């Protein structure tokens, strides 16, 4: 009882929190290799080496930062990612936080992520980081609606806002097939919430690193780690909402979840660097004028499908 409800879910969440970002870094390394950015042996060691360098480098301080908020931001981002992972059902019994409103809680995590990313850029009180922070908020305010409409879509056939119920409702057919628009839209949200690839408005190259421009050492380590952890949490939610979570033949549920999460991570790691960064203006228009109506269509599709 205690084992099933506390120990195993906690162990799985912590394992995903530590291993997930590491594996994502390895996947990123593989993609970078495919693009010809790195070479040679050490694919598995490269993330650890980079981490070791960040631990050795001194943490930077700016002239008059909001010091406490600045150090809190990466830790909060990590906590949000961990909170997201806690919602992921690993099997019917093993769910760290099995509440009736887990989709709503995930929505609030997405919204708070915007606040935390803004905080990271704002607290430094430096110019390039500040521009990055405000720029990201434009994106953060735009993707949240797309995300919520798509997630409401998966709640319709489940008649519940609990992720476990959403998975159970997929027993006959996974949502990725039943609501074909859902997953692609949700993947875009995943890139946006971790500001990767085309949606890297926060830490973009034109701002010399954006919100990270004046961040170094251990703080940067935690920031990049949290950013990866958030994508891992996101892949967990995507797995539960669209890919049938623990459902699958032969293997035990948690393994299926892990495989599906890895597949989502690999897809996102490959998609991210494939596209040029959008300008903030483009980003906002795209989200509101193209993706949001598509999310409406997805919702209507899901509704009609759920009634038939």
């Amino acid at each position, binding site marked *: 009882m205690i084992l099933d409800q506390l120990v195993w879910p906690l162990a799985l969440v912590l394992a995903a929190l530590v291993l997930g970002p590491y594996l994502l870094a390895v996947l990123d390394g593989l993609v*970078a290799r*495919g*693009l*010809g*950015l*790195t*070479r*040679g042996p*050490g694919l598995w*060691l*490269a993330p*650890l*080496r*980079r981490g*070791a*360098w960040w*631990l*050795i*480098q*001194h*943490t*930077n301080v700016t*002239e*008059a930062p909001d010091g406490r908020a600045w150090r809190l931001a990466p830790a909060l981002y990590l906590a949000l990612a961990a909170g997201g992972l806690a919602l992921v059902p690993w099997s019917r019994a093993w769910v760290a936080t099995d509440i009736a409103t887990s989709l709503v809680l995930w929505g609030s995590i997405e919204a708070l992520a915007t606040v935390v990313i803004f905080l990271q850029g704002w607290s430094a009180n430096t*110019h390039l980081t*500040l*521009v990055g922070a*405000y*720029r990201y908020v434009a994106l953060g305010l735009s993707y949240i609606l797309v995300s919520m409409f798509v997630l409401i879509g998966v709640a319709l056939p489940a008649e519940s806002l609990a992720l476990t119920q959403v998975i159970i409702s997929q027993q006959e057919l996974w949502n990725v097939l039943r609501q074909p628009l859902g997953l692609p839209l949700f993947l875009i949200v995943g890139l946006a919430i971790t500001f990767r*690839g*085309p949606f*890297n408005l926060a830490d*973009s*190259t*034109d*701002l*010399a*690193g954006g919100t*990270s*421009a*004046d*961040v*170094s*050492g251990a703080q*940067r380590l935690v920031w990049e780690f949290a950013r990866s952890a958030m994508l891992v949490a996101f892949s967990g939610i995507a797995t539960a909402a669209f890919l049938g979570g623990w459902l699958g033949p032969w293997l035990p549920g948690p393994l299926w979840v892990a495989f599906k999460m890895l597949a989502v991570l690999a897809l996102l790691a490959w998609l991210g*660097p*494939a*596209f*040029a*960064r*959008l*300008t*903030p*203006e*483009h980003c906002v228009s795209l989200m509101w004028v193209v993706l949001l109506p598509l999310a409406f269509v997805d919702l209507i599709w899901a509704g009609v499908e759920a009634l038939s």
Partner: protein
Amino acid sequence: MAVSWLARLAACAPVPVFPALGMRGEEALYRLALSPEIKLVDSPRHASLLLVAGGVPPSMQQALRRVHDQFPAPFTTLWYRSTPLVELPRAAVTTVDSLDALPGALVESHGSLLRNTVGHSPRLLPDAPPHPWQGLGDDGHGGEGMMGGVPYGRPMAMPPTEDLRDGLALDVLTFRLGPFFPLWPPGLEAEVILQGDIIQQFSVQSSPFPRALAPVFHEAREQSVAIAALERARARHHLQALFHALHLAGLEGLARDALRLADRCPSGDIALLAKWFKTFERRMKRRGFFALHLPERGALRQEQAERLGGFAARAAGIDRDARTEDDGYRRLAFATITQQAGDTRARWRQRLAEIAQAFDLAARAQRDDMRTAQTDAVETPRGAWRDSRPGGTSPLLEDLLPGLEWGEALASLASLELAALSPWPREERAETQMGGAA
């Protein structure tokens, strides 16, 4: 010991290098971008090594000191064809003069830095706040009215200024950027006034360092040269410029591809180069490079385009090219390519078209060993070189950039070539030009 295995692990990491480019430092940048063991970064906060490539004029040494002091410890410096700052201790300085030895030297420096066998670079500037504390109250506010004083060493952003786009009067951020800002031409120094993320005012304080061209352009002014060599050098120049724009767009893989193509330009098989370039161009379009550049952003007015000349003028619809005056080119049935819009996007379309054209011209010229027929006008990638070399045109930015969003402004800047043409070709040593820098 715990720290030592951490250091050993970190010593094998890709070497994070912040390049501060002086005169003729680009070659080092292009080489390092293709070295997988080096990771070029855009902020000193992310680097363990300061690479100063090329000569730094005396007027910019204070700025270099400031960049140097912004590195978090531990870090050290490496100087490529450059004279180290005199106050740096010998232990914290490595000098390298050969391009081939550069990546190795950087890896070596990073390794010894973490093994503590090389000196950490010391701080050069005095540890004093930018302004002494002024004002009253807990936070130093007050004193002279609400926003008076210098709380925490600097005044607050003031005064409210009317915005260019919507006229709303909010605070503006005023700062000086450069000359070692890695995302714009080396040497460019400007006072930027931002209102939100839109540039309100841009005043150039020092022009970018003169840009050195391949020696073949200089030879073409003196004697007849092979058209193929000239066109290959032209393609190479534009491809290297593309590297910066692609990096700015976040397309790191394609940026490297552009450099790889550029490296093959001088001697590679021309048919193969043209084919690779076609693939490269297609990929660039598919990955949304042009979507980054909204229409009409960074558009030059007619007289500005004329002043700038070269591809920038042709991108604005001015049908002018010194190659049309050359009999050699005429026999190749050379025809100028032009675009109409004259904006950032048109300039990149123009440059891509000119690269493709250069490969085509080179292929045909090579077959019949065609040579240039005249020496009094050479079309360089920077514009026509007639009686005088194309000069610097960076004051044009003061007119062009205000009103643009930050990212758009940098993209426009990357699509232009504003530096004057250096009187010396590229392969020459940088020291001859440095004058009193040492």
